[in-house]
């Protein structure tokens, strides 16, 4: 067959061009999804405000302390980080109404009714020499304890895990199992 057509433009190089573009985007962009632990800092107290300690019953507070060697102290005894979660769970749920563990108050929750809500507060203190890794590990254990309590509460009441609940139900559970972690004023343990 003799008749030749106009030769098509050689398109094999478009792949190379596209590869170049691809490499450019791979280099200059980052993959999405940044994850982390959410916290709310307490507002700074006013300067002229009188320093008065809010009276919190001793049984309602647990002090978790991390020293400069990353050792943990929960309440009054040294503890391993693997034990911390169970200790916090016991502290917050207080299943046997132990007088040494935090008291509960009955609270009206909209859409649920009266509910026993713990008054326990976790106070987290750290030293300036504590490593960030240990701090995050402890924060993580605290959040895990609360998440597990929330899961237990939701499967008891709704038969589902917390993550599978509707938004309103999640709000109720959040109110019933509050996340009271106080990041205390920094204390210079070295100076004092």
């Amino acid at each position: 067959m003799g008749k030749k057509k106009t030769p098509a433009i050689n398109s094999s190089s478009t792949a190379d061009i596209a590869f170049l573009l691809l490499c450019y985007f791979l280099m200059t962009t980052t993959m999405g999804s940044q994850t982390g632990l959410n916290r709310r800092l307490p507002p700074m107290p006013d300067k002229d405000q009188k320093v008065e300690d809010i009276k919190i019953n001793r049984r309602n507070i647990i002090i978790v302390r991390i020293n400069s060697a990353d050792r943990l102290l929960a309440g009054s005894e040294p503890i391993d980080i693997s034990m911390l979660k169970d200790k916090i769970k016991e502290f917050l749920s207080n299943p046997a109404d132990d007088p040494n563990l935090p008291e509960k108050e009955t609270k009206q929750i909209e859409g649920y009714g009266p509910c026993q809500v713990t008054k326990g507060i976790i106070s987290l203190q750290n030293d300036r020499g504590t490593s960030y890794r240990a701090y995050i590990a402890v924060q993580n254990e605290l959040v895990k304890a609360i998440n597990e309590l929330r899961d237990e509460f939701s499967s008891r009441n709704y038969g589902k895990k917390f993550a599978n609940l509707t938004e309103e139900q999640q709000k109720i559970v959040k109110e019933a199992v509050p996340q009271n972690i106080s990041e205390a004023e920094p204390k210079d343990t070295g100076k004092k």
Partner: protein
Amino acid sequence: MSKFGGSNSKKEVPSMSSGSLSDIVFMLLFFFMVTTQMRETENKVMVKLPEASEVVKLERKDLASYINIGPPTRMLQAKYGTEARIQLNDDFKSIEDIRDFIAAERESMNESDRALMTTVIKGDMDVRMGIITDVKQELRRCSALKILYQARKAE
């Protein structure tokens, strides 16, 4: 036996058409363009994120401002030493500069979004808490109270 063979029927195996190769690569390209985001700042500090199992996703990425804390990168260590430093935007800064940084970030947001502003603390896992406590105190002073400790998801 070939049906379509002409007179000069000794044909070679036809080479594979590479025309669709560019389409495939373009598809890859679009995938990456959609799933990634532009890196706004150049990292001047090395950050190895700590691991945590209970992490949550950052909800509004456009409302986040980043504070990087860590030792300077290898190239900059000769100049700045290995002590942990704070990086805001593109430069090493000190604690006092956080106030201006937060104010500027806040200024650039919509009025309605300002309450939702999250400060992401991107700390290296070997950093001491002293510097992080200082940053936290400064953030409290600026009343940027919503913070997120960035961490990697661990199984």
